[in-house]
């Protein structure tokens, strides 16, 4: 039996890029997938997944719209009987130099933050009750290695203040969400990765993109493409993460380094300290409720806050 059979996963922004890779991989693992995007081609992605035999629900809507999110979550639960996994992947990247005119700054704030932060909050809030009745679940926020600068200098690009801020802001949802949902066996983690070969990244190297001087009509040249990570490898890491059972972590994925979970960053210690602090009861988290989950790895790393 496939590892995720009987489970339902929502993947936002799944028309292309990482979202599509996540959806396809989760479907390959046996999950029914509910995928959405503002781009209508998400329907074709859904059809190709269905052709391989998986349960699929596709939605074309703007994730920043509350009513649409509510409808999609309700439809997903009704169609598949519950929700176990949410991958908050949809995001916009915009060049927002600090020298921009005031009116553009105002528009950019809403355009970037409504999708990259507010919609993540909305979707997470909407699925939590469904996961609670299922007795557990996983929320994975898709961040960037900008929030884990220790391995890569030059991050937090100076001309994308809002994109950068939006991804830093996700730490608040990952950290506190992991703690609030731990008693319900719901894990909240983030994948914080570097350059990955997707349409979003390639577009930067095409005419009009900020790195157009390095690329051409087809995007980046081969030597730059070779430095990008493969979305399929990130999707493998996502599956590893779901099997692992850790929570409250930003998993760093740096181009040029092995794509691996690495040792747990002592989330249990972070939880315990936090529990002492707030006077909340402790709960042992244990392995995830999936059938063939491995025993949790003993905490190996030193207790350094993930996001310091």
């Amino acid at each position, binding site marked *: 039996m496939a590892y995720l059979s009987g489970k339902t996963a929502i993947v936002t922004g799944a028309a292309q890029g990482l979202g599509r890779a996540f959806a396809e991989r989760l479907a390959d693992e046996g999950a029914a997938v509910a995928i959405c995007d503002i781009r209508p081609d998400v329907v074709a992605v859904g059809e190709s997944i269905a052709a391989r035999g998986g349960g699929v629900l596709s939605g074309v809507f703007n994730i920043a719209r*509350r009513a649409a999110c509510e409808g999609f979550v309700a439809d997903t639960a009704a169609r598949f009987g519950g929700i176990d996994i949410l991958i908050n992947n949809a995001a916009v990247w915009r060049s927002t130099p600090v020298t921009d005119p005031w009116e553009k700054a105002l528009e950019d704030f809403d355009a970037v933050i409504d999708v990259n932060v507010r919609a993540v*909050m909305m979707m997470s809030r*909407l699925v939590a009750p469904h996961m609670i009745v299922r007795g557990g679940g996983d929320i994975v926020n898709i961040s960037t290695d900008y929030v884990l600068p220790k391995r890569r*200098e030059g991050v937090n690009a100076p001309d994308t203040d809002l994109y950068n801020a939006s991804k*830093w802001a996700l730490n608040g949802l990952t950290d506190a969400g992991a703690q609030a949902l731990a008693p319900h066996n719901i894990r909240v983690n983030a994948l914080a990765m570097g350059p990955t070969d997707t349409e979003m990244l390639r577009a930067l190297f095409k005419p009009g993109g900020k790195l157009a001087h390095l690329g051409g009509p087809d995007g980046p040249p081969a030597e730059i493409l070779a430095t990008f990570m493969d979305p399929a490898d990130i999707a493998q890491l996502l599956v590893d993460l779901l099997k692992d059972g850790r929570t409250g972590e930003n998993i760093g994925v*740096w181009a040029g380094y092995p794509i691996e979970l690495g040792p747990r960053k002592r989330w249990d210690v972070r939880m315990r300290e936090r529990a002492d602090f707030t006077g909340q009861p402790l709960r042992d988290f244990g392995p995830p409720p999936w059938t063939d989950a491995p025993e949790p790895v003993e905490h190996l790393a030193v207790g350094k806050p993930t996001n310091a």
Partner: protein
Amino acid sequence: MARLQGQVALVTGAAVGLGRQYAEALAREGCDVVVCDIRPEIVRVAEELVRLGVRAIGHVADVSKPADVRRVVDGALAEFGKIDILISNAGVWRGGDAKDPLDKSLQDYDVLIGTNMKGVFLFGRAVIPVMTAAGGGHIINIATDHVHTHPGRPTAGGSAMDLYDVSKWGVLGLTLTWAKALAPHNIRVNSFSMGATDSHMLRGFHNNAPSEADVASWMKPEAVCDLAIQLIGEGHTGRTGENIGVWVGFEIELKPVPAAKPVPVAA
């Protein structure tokens, strides 16, 4: 001896709490001060600042409203012709967690992200062109120790402040990015990540009747303000892009700027 004589400082959320203290500290150092707050008593605060021998203007303004932000910044320029220092301090707190109903969370989101993050964004973006044209400036954004904890404490303000934390992580992202973007323009951007400090907000958590022991355990606003003055006083060659931890039980001080780290080479 005034250390910042002749400079113009803008402090948001300065009617009560830490903001008011920053404004007074800056005035004592000789700054002309522009203050704003949603509380109408901000007008009286400005009058009191004038008694310290500087010029001051108070605006009733909501930092989350673009038109209000423009009015404050344009008013400051009309009156003083420049802005050298910005302390984006206005902030609100609300509890809430991942199990909250969406209705409540969206209301909290509007207030918390609107004030704490959008307010910082708007004031920064309004003031940056002014500072760039003048050839330099200092911005201090106020975060919280939830995003930069003292050693041994995990990040986050527990399980039940997620949207407050979201807003303050966002502030950190803006700080780090602006520091990088503005270094060539002589504009320094840092943030304070502080723990419990005696303020209107903190007293409110204790039903406005904190015990003596509570108050004694908090940091004193004067110490935090003095840190801000020292930070600004470092001048154009001072640190930038630092999220400065200000923690209960630790020395309240500016650490020496660490030497530039060698760029790690990919394995």
